[in-house]
Each structure stands twice: as C-alpha cells, then as structure tokens.
C-alpha cells in the first residue's frame, strides 16, 4: 500500500507518495516499532498493575490489617511480568469486552 506525505501550505494541499530512501527508512522504523510491541504492552500492563496496587495501598497502614486474599492478589499483580513473558500472554491480560472492561480475572480485586 502506498504511503504518503501530506504537504499543507497556505496555497493548498499536496499529497506526495513516499518513495526511495524515505520509504525504506519509514518501513525500517515501522518494523523496529512493531518489534517493540511486546515492550509497549508490558508497559501498559505495568501501568494497570500500578493503578490497582495504589488503590489498595491503604491496607498497608499500621492501623489496618490487610486481608489475606488482598495480600495474595497484590503479590499476584507484582508477579505478573515474571509469570507472563510473551506477547500472547500480554494480549490475554489486556483483553477487553465490548464495553471496554478488562476481562482477565487477575485485574479483579477479591
């Protein structure tokens, strides 16, 4: 599929097909970016994990006793990168239903 540069000037718009060295570089950059897809998904997973750990940090206060099931859940969240190490596993963790809700059980607070 052809790729384009959109050139927008006061005088008007020109759409120029990307060819030659520029196209070669574009495709190389795109491949390099795609090759880091797993890393980006892992970053999202870490962000989602951090959100949930923060939500339950208050259990760590000295005057509160953290329930065992919450302790276990928090440890499971911490272990996510260690126990999920490939893109297929990441995709499963990031799966969402039609309403945009995460479907993997690990994200649900006990």
């Amino acid at each position, binding site marked *: 599929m052809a790729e*384009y*540069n*959109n050139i*927008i000037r006061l005088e008007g718009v020109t759409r120029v097909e*990307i060819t030659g060295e520029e196209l070669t570089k574009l495709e190389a950059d*795109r491949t390099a970016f*795609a090759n880091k897809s797993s890393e980006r998904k892992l970053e999202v997973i870490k*962000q989602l994990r951090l959100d949930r750990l923060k939500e339950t940090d208050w259990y760590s206060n000295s005057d509160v006793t953290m329930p065992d099931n919450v302790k276990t859940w928090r440890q499971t969240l911490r272990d996510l990168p260690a126990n999920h190490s490939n893109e297929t596993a990441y995709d499963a963790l990031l799966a969402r239903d039609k309403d945009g809700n995460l479907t993997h059980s690990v994200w649900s607070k006990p």
Partner: protein
Amino acid sequence: MTKARQLADLISSGSIETAEITSLDAAKLTGNIADARVPASAVTQHANNYTHPNHSGEVTSTADGATVITDNIVDEANLKVSNTPTNGYMLTAQSGNTGGLTWADAPSGTHVKLVSGSASSSVNHDFQNFMDTSKYNSYMVQFSKVIGLASNALHFQFVANTTVLTNSNYWWAFHGHRSTNNEIVNYGEQSAQAPLGSAMVGSSGNAANYLFHIYNNPNSTNMGNNVYGHNWGYRSDLGDYLFTDYAFGFNNSHNVTGFRVHAEGNDATTFDYAIYGIAK
C-alpha cells in the same frame, strides 16, 4: 378690423401677432401644416404601447419596479475604499478617508485563520511556511477527529522551509490525569521529536483531540521555539478517558517556518485541522 386691413398689417410687419396664434383654432390647420399636428389620439396610443424593460446586471429590476442589488454580487471591486487590500486584511471604518473605509491589518491579539481543512490519510503531515514573523509570534493549532493512532503518541517536529528538523534538540514533558484518578507522566531530553502528550487511540468512535500553541521567537537560540498544549480523548487500551498537558522546547537557532506531525509507529492518520496566527 377688416380682413383686408389684417392682410395689410401682416404684409407690412412680416409677422403674425402672437395673440392671433394663441387663439388659432387647431381645425384651421390644414394642408402641410396639418401633417405636423400630433392628434391627441396618437399621444394616448403611444403611452399605452410602451413597456418598460427589466434592468439586468448587478442591479436589476422587474419592469419599472424598484432597482435591487442582486444577491451574492457585490465584491471588493464594487466598494469605494481608500486603499488596495492585502490578503488577510480587514475592512475598517475610517470616516476621514475616501469612501469612509480602509483595508487594515488585523488588530493585535486577533486570531487570524491561516489554514484549515481535513488531512487525508498520510504518515506525515507537513504544515509548511505558514509562519510569518512580521505578523505573528504565536500560533494556535487545533486537531480534531484524529483517527489512526493505535495507542501511539502523535509526534511533533519543527520544519524550516521544507526541511524537517530531526536533530536531537527537543526537550519535552507531559503530565495528565486519567478518569481512574491516576496520573500519566512522561518526559525526555535531546530527543529527535517531541510527543504531543500521551499516546492516544484514534479510532472513529474514540477520536483524539489536540489544541496547542506554538511560540516562534526568530531571534532566540535556546528554546525560543516552543509548544504548550493539551490532548484529550478515550484511550481504550487503558480503558480511561484522559487528558495531558504538554510542553517542549526546540534547543536550536533554526528559523522555523512550520512543523510536521506523525504518529509514533508511523501510523497513517487523518484529522481536521485549523491553524490561527495571533496578530502581534
């Protein structure tokens, strides 16, 4: 007076008394004189036969009705203005000038729309040579309905004429908030480009939005060209609505004249755009 006497007077004077003409009975005009008479019936007939034409052109009429200026017809050439316009000028009232009107540059602070439209699907969108340091130091840029981002950031690079400035001169940071009450933060220095805030998902149902200001100081060498703005929208990979505020500087002495935006990951994107110059 006898007719003989009248005839004698006419011959001797060479003229007919005015009193005699004004009392002349029209029926007495016969022969060649009768041909010169215009009968009253002819006058009446001529008046009844005349039909007033429609006026056409920029000002029209229906028959002898009121003349009216046609809709959508008066242009700049019709106006009586004291000077010749320059593109982008505004018409101002100046009672002492010819026609009471003068073309003038936009007053300070006015947002002048420089360019707007819908960007067709492309990897790079280069907005070239819209900057005019004689008129503007600041520009406001709006992108709406940004589609094509797949959880990727929209990146920004300045352009000098047609050259995209990709050297590692961008210092940037962004900070925002998500609808789950979590912050979203990132930063970098000596980058080859700067992100316009957080990554977004730009699908047709969750189009992303951007609004930012460019400050272009042509005499500065350090961070004189910089951007501050916002982006917002729904990010389906996080399941959150979010916004981020972002700022970055371009640490170089180039006289920039435009900018390029492209998606991280080189996604092809489409969006509606408008750029305003803020008059000095």
